[in-house]
């Protein structure tokens, strides 16, 4: 269905307003979430992350009025402190999507939150923990997985990846931590479904020969990974989900498959330590290890390597400024990961703390990089991004000097 085209300038403006609002609100909610209008509006770390990523994603989608509607509805859902508001916002977000799969996912998400409110003693987000039930959870998980592209794996008919729908699905599952803690069965289901989506989509991305198709599978895999680490139900998992969403957003903004310089393409694959992509993949694997699930951690790493391979296979010229700028931004964000962890990811996990387990946290490691700690505060994984890049720089200079001296190069 084609509707009236939307003027580009106000369209981009809505995206910019959403993103900047998210950044502005982040300063306000560093210590505690902001609630107003009798807790009908709740602004927390998750709200800010979703607004920032959704705002940026608007720059990557063709201008259309329905996208503005999606953004507004998603913003309403993520700022709502009332379960009915969340349900309605999520449903509108996904009903405005272009495919029936996403619309079905929207109904599932809305029904899930609606049922929680129905069974709970209150419809307020922070007082509805007694309404959590397995049926709601199944609907929410299924909705999120379908929005992230689960049905595209199963069917031959493949459609375009809808990033706003995937973001809404993942945000809906993350928001569940504000309602209350999950049980182990729900965690296991999320880990299995998310892991299956992540590895299958990564495999499709690595095996396809068509660059744009590979990029779409890669983004589905990133969404699957975000869903998987959410299943860890720990501060580390939530932080990793945030980093994966940021990496997905950056790849969409940079569009490396449409043409990029070789160096820029590789910086965007996530294979280079110190880049945002690497930090995102590492944090996903580290979150699983910190949660005491080494099998999942290795599976996640295998999916990450497949994503890196898929992205590396389709690096091709000509160099374009979005990919160059995106690669530099990815490097800057990756090196600033300790700051990102303190400023963006800590509010995200702190404000969802009520529903999380203590099995894993990702902490800044001085300026060197990030550190994952398990429930006993022991080191589960380390990512010294800045230290590694500095070391490689030192080695590079040394080897170059020796090579010039010996006349090898």
């Amino acid at each position, binding site marked *: 269905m084609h509707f009236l085209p939307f003027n580009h300038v106000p369209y981009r403006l809505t995206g910019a307003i959403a993103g900047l609002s998210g950044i502005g609100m982040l300063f306000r909610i560093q210590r505690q979430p902001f609630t107003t209008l009798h807790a009908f509006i709740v602004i927390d770390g998750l709200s800010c992350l979703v607004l920032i990523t959704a705002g940026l994603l608007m720059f990557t989608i063709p201008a259309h009025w329905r996208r503005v509607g999606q953004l507004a509805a998603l913003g309403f859902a993520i700022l709502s402190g009332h379960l009915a508001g969340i349900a309605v916002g999520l449903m509108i977000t996904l009903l405005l999507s272009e495919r029936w799969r996403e619309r079905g996912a929207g109904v599932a998400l809305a029904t899930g939150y609606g049922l929680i409110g129905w069974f709970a003693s209150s419809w307020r987000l922070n007082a509805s923990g007694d309404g959590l039930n397995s049926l709601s959870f199944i609907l929410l998980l299924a909705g999120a997985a379908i929005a992230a592209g689960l049905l595209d794996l199963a069917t031959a008919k493949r459609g375009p990846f809808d990033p706003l729908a995937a973001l809404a699905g993942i945000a809906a599952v993350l928001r569940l931590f504000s309602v209350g803690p999950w049980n182990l069965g729900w965690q296991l289901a999320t880990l299995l479904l998310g892991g299956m989506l992540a590895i299958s989509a990564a*495999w499709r991305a*690595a*095996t396809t*020969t068509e660059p744009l198709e590979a990029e779409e599978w890669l983004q589905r895999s990133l969404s699957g990974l975000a869903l998987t680490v959410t299943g860890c139900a720990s501060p580390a998992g939530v932080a990793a989900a945030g980093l994966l969403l940021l990496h997905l957003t950056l790849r969409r903004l940079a569009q490396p498959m449409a043409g990029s310089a070789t160096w820029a393409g*590789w910086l965007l694959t996530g*294979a280079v*330590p110190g880049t945002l992509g*690497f930090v995102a993949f*590492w944090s996903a*694997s*580290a979150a699983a*290890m910190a949660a*005491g699930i*080494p*099998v999942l*951690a*290795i599976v996640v*790493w*295998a999916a*990450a*390597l*497949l994503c*890196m*391979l898929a992205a*590396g*296979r389709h*690096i091709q010229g000509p160099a374009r400024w979005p990919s160059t700028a995106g690669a530099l931004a990815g490097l800057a964000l990756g090196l600033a990961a300790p700051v990102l962890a303190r400023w963006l990811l800590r509010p995200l996990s702190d404000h969802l703390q009520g529903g999380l387990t203590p099995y894993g946290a990702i902490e800044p*490691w*001085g*300026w*060197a*990089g990030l550190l*994952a700690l*398990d429930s006993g505060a*022991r*080191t*589960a*994984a*380390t*990512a*010294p991004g*800045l*230290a*590694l890049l*500095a*070391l*490689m720089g*030192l*080695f*590079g200079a*040394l*080897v*170059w000097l020796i*090579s010039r001296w010996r006349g*090898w*190069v």
Partner: protein
Amino acid sequence: MSDLLGAFGQAWLRLLLYPGGLSAVLAALVLARLRGIRQLEPLTAPRLLDLLPPLSAIALLPLAPAASFPYGLDLPTAVTLLLWPELRRAAAERRDPHQLAAHYLPTFLAAIALASAAGTFDLSGLLRWPSTPVRQAALLLGAGAWIAAIPRLAPPQPHLAAACSALGLMLIGVLPLSAAINTIAAAAPAWLGVAAAITIALAGMAAARRLPVQWGYVWASAALVAASGVLLDSR
């Protein structure tokens, strides 16, 4: 930031001589010769870029008797750095992912066993000899499966980056072996344990090269069974 600069200042021996730098390059050349590569390609600018990640990974390995480095690596980071030349090659040549999966699956199975036994991804965790027999078995079998998988990885390439990559992967397998030897022969110096472990690893790789491919999977499966024992043991 001063911590970082201080760490590099104190670790120059580690970076230039051992385990990185000169000793790594020499050992990589020896290993390449043992793997049947007589002549390495001359270094070119892209090859130099490929060399840096594996060389950095080797420099940061927690091998005795090098002084410890405060910003150590973990298993996924080290493996990604070591596989960088192969990843670049596989991407450039559009190699068949099915073939790659067949090459690397035993390594990933071994990694599960190593991470389960150590309880952490931190590479220094592989140097801590566990107290329970189940974990000890998982760590040893995991190390064995890891080393046995190396000859089955992608065919050796005639350049220094690939040689450093193979050396680094072998040295990761050496870490648990040296922990075992240093525990058994507690009175011996730590470097002797590393030397003995490297000898065992080289012999293991030579033996694994002669065995059929299926043996790699059998060993990795045994390591996985032991790793599942670790899960039951910790309940």
